[in-house]
């Protein structure tokens, strides 16, 4: 056998501790270079932010050690978090934790039995259970979020007891250490490595593979359940937006790989996976400190993962070379570093030179194609996006006149506030009313109007100039690009400095970013919640740190409104009432209609469904709701859904209400044109280019006017008013308007 060269040990040491090394290097680099990174508060933020993924990664590592895969962990995290919050009021924390961890274990048991007894590949089994568990979670939550008003347990979990370590972090570390000990030091734990790495040996050693596999799946789902339950408890609420599941799965998967686990089984370490999770969280945090967006995070995440995967491939390749089957190559192997690429071709043995040449030719061609494509991409990027110059008109007094600023559509960003809307009295017990009654939704529709605010920071009336404002935006979407444009233009007009964090629709990420924003001690935080309910603890934390905060865009629940100065944004409910009336008028208040809903987990999922339903029940009682469902705002899905409705209901279906005028509109119009039912009346929430174009072409009747730029601008404007020492109304709506063919030109070109 070939003796290992001595340097191999160093390389081996570096390799086996790569996650820790990356973490140390990254951490030191960021401590030196990144602003506001190296503070007690921020380090706690990182540790806390890593806890969900770290706990889920424990079980995931076990599954990797067994050579299996579990795609359902993200869904289990969400289901169990939802159960914890949903059951807490009835059975208390201990009970709800027990039930949700049990639920997780049951999912794991099902996975394990299907893999072991039905002998189906774990990738397939867990892909199936992922769908099923997500469906169950959505059924249980009805597509909404759940929350409890009692924050004592959340505070306990989140308040640091030792300098850096809140209980939630201590629990995480204890779990990691316990499993590390279990896997490495106990015979039972070592069995997992043998079963995963070498099934024959395991069989000879009398280890029962089936039991190990089932146990592995149960551990995996249970840790995911613990992670989800603790996460939900720490927030006192849980969202039902699927993105949390996806991102958890993807982050955990990359972390476990970076931590050194092999997909083929037999290798992996819970501790190293934990370091890898910490490394990724640190990376995201550091990128946030520099004010860079999610695109940079995911790009770097991809590159790191790609390098690790390539490195693993290299190790296996090298290992194969050293097996001794190819003595002629051993010499080459010893001087491998420089000749790797050349050796790769020799691997084929019989591969002729011709093949080699052809292959390099292919590589060059590919490189050339990539290059050409990239150049084209750059070129067209610059031609399609002309830079916009925002001028700041000044009024007679030399101050900036913000009311005269206009957006890309020629409309003013903000209007002078003229009248306060009339708020109907709150029904005694809204939840006891049926869902088709306006009163049922009172708490959501009029959130914030009558709430008693917690103690708020006082404005020193020193004016907005030079103030630092941090925007925590919900995610990336063309709407949000326009939003940020308006936000920045208005901030510039007031002379405020801005910094933007992007929550990427993930409440886990936004919770970390809220902590990060507090750490920077800005003069104001503007929070555009990812989730209307789960943002409550975030606002509470900001309020506790006595930083003034304004919420924007998604209207939070009453409980959250306590902790912010004001909310600004579109009046979804009001707009849809106006839209519904227009819709009913066009149909002579007769006939059946259907609703294509927004994404579950978002607040428009309810607003843009029940606002028209309740309004039409009063305004046009003869109209009948035939069907409503979500297609996740996808064009193909909407087309399929609407096509089936048209076939099913035929002439009964007279109109469609869409929760979005982008892909939903495209899909619905396709379905309508395929079935030649041009008579179907369409109204939608606006106002993207697709929606505006269809209004102009006469395909759709009406859309709401929701200025994305104005949405961003009004938040800054309200912040500026607070800095000036003005009294704020708790809720401030964007102007309401319904766009029809008659006035669509006034709103051209569309903002996004």
């Amino acid at each position, binding site marked *: 056998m070939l003796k290992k060269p001595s340097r191999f040990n160093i390389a081996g040491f570096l390799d086996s501790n790569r996650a820790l090394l990356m973490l140390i290097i990254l951490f030191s680099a960021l401590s030196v270079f990144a602003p506001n990174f190296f503070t007690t508060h921020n380090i706690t933020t990182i540790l806390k932010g890593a806890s969900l993924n770290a706990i889920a990664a424990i079980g995931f590592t076990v599954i990797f050690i067994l050579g299996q895969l579990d795609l359902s962990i993200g869904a289990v995290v969400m289901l169990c978090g939802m159960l914890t919050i949903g059951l807490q009021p009835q059975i208390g924390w201990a009970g709800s934790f027990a039930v949700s961890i049990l639920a997780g274990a049951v999912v794991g048991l099902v996975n394990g039995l299907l893999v072991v007894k039905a002998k189906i*590949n774990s990738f397939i089994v867990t892909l199936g259970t992922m769908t099923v568990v997500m469906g169950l979670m959505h059924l249980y939550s009805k597509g909404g979020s759940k929350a409890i008003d009692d924050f004592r347990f959340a505070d306990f979990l989140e308040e640091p007891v030792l300098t850096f370590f809140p209980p939630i972090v201590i629990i995480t570390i204890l779990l990691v250490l316990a499993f590390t000990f279990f896997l490495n030091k106990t015979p039972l734990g070592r069995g997992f490595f043998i079963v995963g790495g070498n099934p024959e040996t395991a069989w000879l050693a009398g280890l029962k593979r089936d039991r190990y596999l089932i146990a592995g799946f149960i551990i995996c789902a249970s840790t995911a359940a613990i992670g989800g339950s603790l996460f939900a408890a720490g927030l006192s609420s849980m969202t039902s937006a699927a993105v949390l599941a996806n991102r958890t799965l993807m982050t955990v998967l990359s972390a476990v790989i970076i931590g050194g686990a092999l997909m083929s089984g037999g290798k992996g370490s819970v501790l190293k996976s934990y370091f890898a999770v910490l490394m990724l969280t640190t990376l995201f945090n550091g990128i946030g400190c520099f004010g860079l967006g*999610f695109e940079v995070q995911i790009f770097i995440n991809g590159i790191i993962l790609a390098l690790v995967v390539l490195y693993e491939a*290299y190790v296996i390749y090298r290992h194969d070379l050293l097996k001794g089957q190819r003595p002629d190559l051993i010499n080459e192997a010893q001087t491998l570093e420089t000749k790797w690429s050349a050796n790769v071709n020799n691997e084929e043995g019989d591969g002729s030179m011709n093949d080699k040449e052809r292959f390099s030719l292919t590589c060059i061609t590919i490189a050339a194609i990539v290059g050409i*494509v990239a150049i084209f991409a750059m070129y067209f990027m610059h031609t*399609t996006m002309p830079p916009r110059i925002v001028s700041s008109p000044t009024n007679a007094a030399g101050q900036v006149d913000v009311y005269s600023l206009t957006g890309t559509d020629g409309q003013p960003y903000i209007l002078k506030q003229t009248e306060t809307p009339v708020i109907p009295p709150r029904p005694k017990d809204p939840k006891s009313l049926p869902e088709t009654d306006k009163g049922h939704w009172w708490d959501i529709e009029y959130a914030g109007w009558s709430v008693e605010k917690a103690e708020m920071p006082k404005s020193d009336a020193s004016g907005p100039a030079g103030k630092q404002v941090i925007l925590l935006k919900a995610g990336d979407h063309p709407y949000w690009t326009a939003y940020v444009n308006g936000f920045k233009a208005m901030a510039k007009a007031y002379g405020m400095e801005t910094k933007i964090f992007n929550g990427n629709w993930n409440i886990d990420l936004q919770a970390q970013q809220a902590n990060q924003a507090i750490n920077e001690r800005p003069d104001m935080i503007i929070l555009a919640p990812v989730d209307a309910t789960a943002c409550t603890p975030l606002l509470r934390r900001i309020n506790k740190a006595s930083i003034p905060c304004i919420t924007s865009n998604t209207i939070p629940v009453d409980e959250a409104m306590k902790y912010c100065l004001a909310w600004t944004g579109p009046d979804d409910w009001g707009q849809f009432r106006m839209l519904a009336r227009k819709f009913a008028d066009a149909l002579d208040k007769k006939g059946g209609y259907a609703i294509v809903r927004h994404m579950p987990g978002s607040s428009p999922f309810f607003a843009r469904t029940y606002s028209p339903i309740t309004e039409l029940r009063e305004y046009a009682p003869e109209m009948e709701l035939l069907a409503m469902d979500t297609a996740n705002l996808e064009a193909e899905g909407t087309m399929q859904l609407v096509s089936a409705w048209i076939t099913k209901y035929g002439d009964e279906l007279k109109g469609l209400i869409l929760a979005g005028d982008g892909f939903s509109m495209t899909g619905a119009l396709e379905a309508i044109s395929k079935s030649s039912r041009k008579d179907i009346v369409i109204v939608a929430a606006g106002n993207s280019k697709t929606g505006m174009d269809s209004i102009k072409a006469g395909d759709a009747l009406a859309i709401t006017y929701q200025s994305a730029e104005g949405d961003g601008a009004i938040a800054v404007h309200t912040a500026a008013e607070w800095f000036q020492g003005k009294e704020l109304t708790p809720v401030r709506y964007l102007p309401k308007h319904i766009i029809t063919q008659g006035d669509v030109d006034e709103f051209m070109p569309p903002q996004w």
Partner: protein
Amino acid sequence: MNRENKTKNIFSLSFIFDRIGIFLPVILLLVAGSMVSDKFFTAGNFLNILNAIALLGIVATGMAFVTHSGSMADLSIPSIMAFSGIITVAALPLGLFAAIILGICAGLAIGAMNGFVVGRLNANPILWTLAVAFFMEGFMRFTWSNNQVYPDIEPGTAGAAFINIFRINIGPVPLIVVVMLAMFVIGHLVLTRTRFGIESKLTGSSRPAAKTTGINVPRIVMMNFLAAALCASIGGIFITSMTKLGVFYLGTGYDFKAVTAVVIGGMMLSGGRGNMLGVFGGVMVIGLLTNIMTFIGINTFQQNIVTGGIFIAVVGFGQYHLRKRGKDYA
């Protein structure tokens, strides 16, 4: 292989499944559909179903190549779809034809990279393509600043013609359905009648065996990833044409959807087993299921539960059946 000795019951589920495979659930669903509504068995409804699954079908054809050749799955397919779509829209000023070629080249470039790394460097296909999906998403978001790219759709321009790709009908049948059917037929012929197809099958069944037979395994893997990328690019161009804009999140979810279709259709993730007709059956099952459940009035949440359950059941039954027939070791 002493099938003659076995007692045959022509009415047994196993016997029927052996003959028609995935089309058994298809037939069951057709029967169920006709019981649910009298409007189910109409030409219009079938066109709707075909139209709705066409995109998935096109992408699944590509995924089938990857799965069949033993590389499990290509998770970068959504990013290939989005990227080829964006490039096509961005290149429209050069003319429709050039734009489509460029868009497909863009997708093929990613496919070639995948093929090279997985085939030549033996990286784990799932992890590698996941990494590619990550950094391509980052790249597209960064380059286009999270914006949507709109083509110029004034009548007479290349943009208008591009928008029409999705909307052209050949007779009563939309072009995309024709393309899907054609791709299944071509895919089937490629997999069964060509040297490449046979070599892919052997590569998928056992890489070492394929290697010893003298097959250039890296090239076969590369070609299969290229095939997947080609299909995904075509799908990407259709979806972009449908939505009339290019943006980084188009195609989201098509990775797992395509794997679902391919696996329901009887292809094994371990490779080498299954055929293209089965994949078509798998796509049909998904389309019919969604259609029937919408007819009944089952909402999306419940549909997920049913679809997931049926997915596991069909695949489980298929594997059970293969094992019983002695066709699989597992």
